[in-house]
């Protein structure tokens, strides 16, 4: 759709006379004026002019085009001056141009008007909403407490989802080993056991029982105290106790699970109150005493060793 209508044709006419109109618009203007010759008459323009061939019109407007070209250079010089990037040579050129064409002084005035000035009445009305209170800000507090809570939850998940297997090295130092929790396996609790393997072995030597020989590195496991009675049928050398609840942190106090899975607490001395058979029966589900018993190194060995020591002591006194 053409931009030229009865309201806008005046602008296009002016552009045409100044040689600013491109060929397409000029053709549109001619077409429009041919259709509406009365408009051209109103504007003191001879409509016949517009029926002349375009080429002849263009020749006439060449002078105007040259004039604009010169003004273009002048505009650049004035803008450079405004932007403070004008060189001395350019400044001289600008002055020469004004001297040569006085109308450019007016042009300069016009260009220098083109500086944007802010309207100070335009103000941001929501400032109050953005002002932050000084002092302790609650927002960072929330962020940090949230972060701390997340870390605690992650740590808790990590610790509860990993079992800790306790190993006592030869110096009696407890070492906790973390392993991922397997399905329905028992969690070992860290215990503080005062006696080391060496100490137990030396006690065994002192007791001088030829019937007992401890092999501390052998791995034999009992899954839980519930299984102890079931193990009665197994050979003794395949037995050991793995239930962490067997030993409490108190020194010289041993808890041995009974057949009904109840716990029975006793001190080292109180072991004497039970018969060897009773202890063996309760612990290993057997009273067989002349086999070599192999147990795992670590706190589980303590049960075996202590019981065996007791057993050896009993044997000796008997």
């Amino acid at each position, binding site marked *: 759709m053409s931009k030229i209508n009865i309201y806008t044709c005046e602008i296009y006419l002016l552009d045409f006379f100044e040689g600013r109109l491109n060929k397409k618009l000029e053709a549109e203007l001619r077409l429009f004026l041919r259709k509406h010759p009365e408009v051209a008459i109103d504007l003191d323009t001879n409509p016949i002019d517009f029926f002349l061939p375009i080429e002849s019109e263009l020749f006439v407007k060449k002078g105007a085009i040259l004039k604009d070209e010169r003004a273009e250079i002048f505009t650049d010089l004035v803008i450079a001056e405004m932007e403070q990037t004008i060189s001395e040579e350019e400044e001289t050129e600008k002055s020469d141009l004004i001297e040569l064409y006085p109308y450019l002084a007016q042009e300069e005035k016009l260009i220098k008007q083109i500086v944007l000035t802010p309207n100070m009445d335009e*103000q941001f009305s929501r400032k109050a909403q*953005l002002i932050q209170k000084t002092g302790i800000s609650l927002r960072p507090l929330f962020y940090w407490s949230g972060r701390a809570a997340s870390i605690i939850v992650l740590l808790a998940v990590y610790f509860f989802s990993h079992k800790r297997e306790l190993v006592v090295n030869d110096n009696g130092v407890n070492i906790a080993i973390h392993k991922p929790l397997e399905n329905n396996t028992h969690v070992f609790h860290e215990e503080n056991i005062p006696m080391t393997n060496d100490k137990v072995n030396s006690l065994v030597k002192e007791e001088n029982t030829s019937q007992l020989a401890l092999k501390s590195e052998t791995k034999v496991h009992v899954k839980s105290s519930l299984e102890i009675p079931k193990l009665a049928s197994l050979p003794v050398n395949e037995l050991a106790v793995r239930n962490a609840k067997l030993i409490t942190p108190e020194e010289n106090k041993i808890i041995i699970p009974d057949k009904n899975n109840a716990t029975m607490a006793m001190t080292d001395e109180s072991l004497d109150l039970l018969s060897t058979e009773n202890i063996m029966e309760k612990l290993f589900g057997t009273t067989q005493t002349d086999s070599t018993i192999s147990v795992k190194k670590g706190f589980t060995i303590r049960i075996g060793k202590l019981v065996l020591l007791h057993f050896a002591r009993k044997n000796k006194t008997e």
Partner: protein
Amino acid sequence: MTVKEYNFCVREYSDNIYRFVLKHIRNEELAEDVIQDVFEKVWLKVSDVSFEKAKSYLFQAAYNRMIDVIRKENRQARWKTESEAKVVYQPQVDAKQVIDQALERLPEIQQSVILLRDYEGYSYEEIGEILELNESQVKVYIFRARKTLKQYLSRLELIV
């Protein structure tokens, strides 16, 4: 930047940034939303922003946000026929108003450079930092913008 410095930025710069954004968006409510959004985002990382560079940082953030909004609102149409006609029917005598109208017709980037130059008095280098342009580009855009404005103004003067 401390809370006190942040509040200083709100009091001292929010109006300037608002005017800058308003000139592009031409919608007071949208412009206010942009400013609020920018300041709220700056507040979230207030400790990472240095007070010395806060003003240009805010202008940069506002410019980027404004471009997003303009794209979203599909307000990129330039040289609208309606506004052209409006100018013809109501000849403007006040040069300031005319320039303001002409500004609307400039491409987005030219509007930004000339506003930062004239409103805020930023150097080419600073404008380049804010708009992520090099100095030569800034210079070219400023020249083009002024020439376009001048052409518009002189055309109107002829009409009036």
